[in-house]
């Protein structure tokens, strides 16, 4: 092992993580790699740092850890470099290196103002900073907070204070917010957006000092003589490179700090490299410039990984374009928006949109621009930098520009700046067989960074001739959502009516169940009457779940998982009397397997008599609402989780949806009901309920996103009503809520706008539709048992109703019957 060369990485942030991945991809077995990290956790997504306030789940920001074979030593900050002996110092001793990559990042800059060391004054840089801020701001009596700095980080911090329930002020010395990214006009529009969120903005005002005592900060003094009483202050006045290792080790520093490196990211010492925010990149400027953005850092990581493995990569001038959403407002800045040239400015005071494009004097080349309020044109514009505009400026700035212009980008235009993927890379991948966005992500890495280029990827797919058909199947050219609207608006009541007027042929196993599900919601009746019966999958047709041997399983509803001993005994007796295999399900109920078609009514007679009803385990419908036992018994519980679970399960039982729906209610933050793996999950808080949406287990697990905090039961249910109905109306066939939300343009913000703020004026309709469902619910099994005609379907053989299927046979395993494991031959050849 000792003959391996030793690579040491100092610092473990996002850029170091990217470097480790890039180095591992190049497969350099001759190196052993060690990372020395200052923080007590591996790299996390600092760009999305503020997302921690959504759910306080640091794990959600985790970046996947180091590649195999890399040694990670946490809380081992490098404290010195001995370049002569080629060792670095850290608290536990010396580590020798053959190559050293400095990725020490930045620290928050705290200007020299009096009182900046008072308790209650924070910076906004690491997860520890955020945790300390939260603890302070949520303590009793803390009401007013000020953020010093109105740039990117300041507005993020303002959002955090708002989320923590603090009345928030933003103080910016420059005459506008985000002075580095936007101009005066953009700043004015941005300020109006931010003020509309009840954040007080003080621009052109400096902080002259902070007053307070050992109990914390009390007052912020302004340079104009005014003051503001505050309980918490966040200093977000910028960042400075972590270059304190430079001077003692004799490495050169840039004029504004940072380890000076050349285009290869090498320092003057050929064994020492620097990447990311700590590197002062010197292309032609003396001493170099530090870039506080992740994309240039990633590019530097790639360059050094390439160089160390024999490559010759060099840094191009970094693209400092940024697009972000601050307090719900889109802001984008790209290229050189403050250069000299011709500008095109669009200001719409009504919608709060500001856009500026800067062109060369001959109006032929795009130099840069600024977008506030609507950044949908950003991917196209950024990719057009340095080249001609693909369309007239006003057409590009028109809201929701169509896809046709964007495909005319030059091949060398960078589509994904996080991973430096050009349009040519993407079109090559499409030509090579990629047919969707996940395919392109896997193939080119485009879209796996900040994700802002995903709309562009979709357009390139469409332009590449990949038809992202939304047609449901060969019988309908419409998507499920369009069919839902057609059925609703035209009052269509049957499949035949629909396929005659709006489709072709007689349907198939794809469109028929999908339409049956839509009709179940719009007609709100028994799903097996008339023509509707023929649309149903066998599960819905027999109100039971088909199994591999053609028998069915039966799942009675056990709302919230709460059941009396008497009912448990009935289930046991039914299982025993019909010889059914029993198993407890993951949804806190009991599945009875091995029933033949003709046994189903007999089984359900017994169950319905005992007070059970259908559990809809067979339907694309609400399955269960799991619960933990909650405050009734549990010493940790803070709300009645079982009671709420039962209320929700009874409210939404029988609701047909594009796919199955699962839910759970936990009585406290310990989350024993696993609510965050559900389509809608509820976790009790001291003050009410937190609602999480669009989670699932299954093939690709996804944690649900926090949607509401500390709400009443009434508000909770109203929101879930709308969430479910909006999902049912707009999702694709067999699309779970998780995939639906991920595909939704605007994501969670859009969902919130529609179902909380009623931006589309849809809520009244959604509420009425759910009320209709709740009011018209009837147990399908009871309705079936009461009607001899409906019961007539439940025979194995139409010409021998009493005869069971002779091909079904069982064997016994662990004391219960299971399907016989005979050989399963495949009949080949034509009809005999």
């Amino acid at each position, binding site marked *: 092992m000792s003959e391996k060369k030793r690579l040491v990485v100092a610092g473990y942030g996002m850029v170091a993580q990217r470097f480790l991945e890039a180095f591992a991809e190049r497969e350099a077995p001759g190196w052993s790699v060690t990372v020395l990290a200052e923080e007590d956790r591996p790299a996390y997504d600092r760009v999305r740092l503020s997302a921690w306030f959504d759910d306080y789940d640091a794990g959600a920001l985790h970046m996947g850890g180091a590649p195999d074979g890399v040694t990670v030593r946490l809380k081992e900050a490098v404290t010195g470099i001995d370049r002569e002996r080629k060792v670095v110092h850290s608290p536990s001793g010396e580590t020798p290196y053959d190559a050293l990559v400095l990725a020490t990042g930045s620290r928050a800059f705290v200007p020299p103002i009096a009182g900046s060391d008072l308790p209650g004054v924070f910076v906004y840089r690491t997860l520890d900073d955020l945790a300390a801020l939260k603890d302070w701001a949520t303590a009793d009596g803390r009401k007013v907070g000020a953020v010093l700095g109105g740039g990117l980080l300041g507005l993020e911090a303002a959002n955090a204070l708002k989320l923590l329930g603090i009345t928030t002020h933003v103080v910016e010395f420059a005459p506008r917010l985000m002075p580095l990214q936007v101009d005066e006009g953009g700043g004015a529009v941005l300020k109006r957006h931010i003020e509309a969120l009840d954040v007080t903005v003080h621009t052109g005002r400096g902080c002259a000092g902070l007053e307070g005592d050992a109990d914390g900060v009390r007052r912020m003094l302004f340079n104009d003589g005014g003051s503001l009483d505050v309980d918490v202050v966040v200093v977000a006045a910028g960042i400075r490179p972590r270059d304190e290792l430079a001077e003692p080790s004799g490495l050169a520093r840039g004029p504004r700090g940072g380890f000076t490196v050349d285009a290869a990211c090498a320092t003057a010492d050929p064994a020492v490299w620097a990447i990311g925010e700590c590197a002062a990149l010197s292309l032609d400027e003396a001493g170099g410039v530090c870039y506080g953005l992740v994309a240039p850092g990633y590019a530097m990581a790639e360059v050094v990984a390439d160089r160390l493995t024999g490559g010759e990569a060099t840094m191009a001038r970094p693209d400092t374009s940024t697009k972000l959403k601050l307090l719900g407002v889109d802001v984008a800045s790209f290229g050189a928006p403050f250069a000299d040239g011709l500008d095109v400015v669009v200001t719409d005071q009504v919608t709060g949109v500001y856009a500026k494009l800067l062109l060369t004097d001959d109006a032929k080349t795009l130099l840069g621009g600024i977008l506030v309020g609507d950044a949908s044109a950003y991917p196209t514009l950024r990719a057009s930098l340095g080249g001609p505009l693909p369309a007239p400026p006003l057409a590009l700035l028109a809201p929701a520009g169509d896809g046709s212009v964007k495909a005319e980008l030059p091949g060398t235009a960078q589509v994904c700046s996080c991973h430096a993927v050009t349009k040519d890379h993407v079109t090559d991948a499409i030509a090579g067989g990629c047919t969707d966005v996940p395919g392109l992500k896997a193939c080119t890495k485009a879209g796996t960074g900040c994700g802002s280029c995903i709309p562009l990827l979709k357009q390139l797919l469409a332009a590449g001739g990949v038809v992202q058909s939304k047609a449901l199947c060969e019988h309908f050219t419409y998507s499920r959502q369009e069919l839902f609207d057609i059925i609703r608006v035209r009052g269509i009541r049957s499949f035949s009516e629909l396929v005659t007027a709006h489709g072709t042929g007689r349907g198939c196993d794809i469109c028929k169940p999908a339409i049956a599900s839509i009709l179940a919601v719009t007609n709100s009746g028994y799903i097996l009457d008339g023509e509707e019966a*023929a649309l149903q*999958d066998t599960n819905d047709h027999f109100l039971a779940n*088909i199994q591999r041997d*053609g028998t069915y399983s039966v799942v009675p509803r056990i709302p919230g998982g709460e059941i009396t001993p008497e009912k448990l005994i009935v289930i046991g007796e039914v299982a025993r009397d019909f010889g059914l295999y029993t198993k407890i399900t993951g949804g806190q109920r009991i599945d009875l397997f091995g029933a033949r078609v003709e046994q189903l009514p007999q089984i359900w007679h017994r169950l319905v008599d005992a007070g059970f009803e259908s559990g809809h385990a067979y339907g694309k419908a609400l399955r269960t609402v799991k619960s933990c036992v909650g405050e009734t018994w549990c010493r940790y519980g803070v709300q009645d989780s079982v009671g709420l679970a039962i209320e929700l399960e009874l409210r939404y039982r029988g609701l047909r949806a594009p796919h199955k729906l699962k839910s759970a209610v936990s009585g406290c933050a310990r989350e024993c009901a696993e609510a965050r793996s559900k389509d809608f999950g509820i976790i009790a808080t001291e003050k009410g309920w937190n609602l999480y949406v669009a989670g699932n287990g299954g093939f690709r697990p996804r944690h649900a996103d926090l949607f509401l905090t500390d709400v009443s039961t009434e508000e909770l249910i109203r929101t879930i009503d709308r969430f479910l109905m909006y999902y049912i109306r707009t999702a694709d066939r067999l699309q779970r809520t998780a995939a639906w939300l991920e595909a939704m343009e605007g994501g969670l913000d859009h969902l919130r706008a529609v179902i909380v703020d009623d931006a589309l004026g849809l809520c009244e309709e959604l509420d009425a539709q759910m009320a209709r469902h709740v009011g018209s619910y009837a147990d399908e099994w009871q309705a079936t048992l009461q009607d001899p005609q409906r019961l007539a379907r439940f025979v194995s053989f139409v010409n021998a109703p009493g005869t069971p299927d002779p091909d079904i046979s069982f064997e016994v395993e662990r004391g219960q019957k299971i399907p016989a494991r005979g050989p399963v031959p495949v009949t080949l050849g034509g*009809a005999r």
Partner: protein
Amino acid sequence: MTTATLTITWTAICSYSRLEAERGVAALVDGVQIAIFRTYSGELFAIGNRDPIAGAQVMSRGIVGTRGDTPTVASPLHKQVYDLRTGECLDVAGVAVPTYPIRRNGDAVEVAVDKP
């Protein structure tokens, strides 16, 4: 193929009105399980009830529809689609279910199964 000795024996299964449009029923004829379908236009088809891929007797419970002009049924287990006229699986080459002669005789639906 055709010889003078071929005789067809028709067996009555049920009344035509017992069949729902675009839905199947299963019948047991001399120990052979048959799936019988009535299409939207009223045509009748009889195929083997056994899903040749899964091995279970379930074809009668599949969804009836069309692919192009071909009347079809999809296995309820794994959704492979079969041509109701020929029994041929349209999704997996070389797989087929048997087909049987079927007719409407007055209100009776009758099928013919070769006696071994």
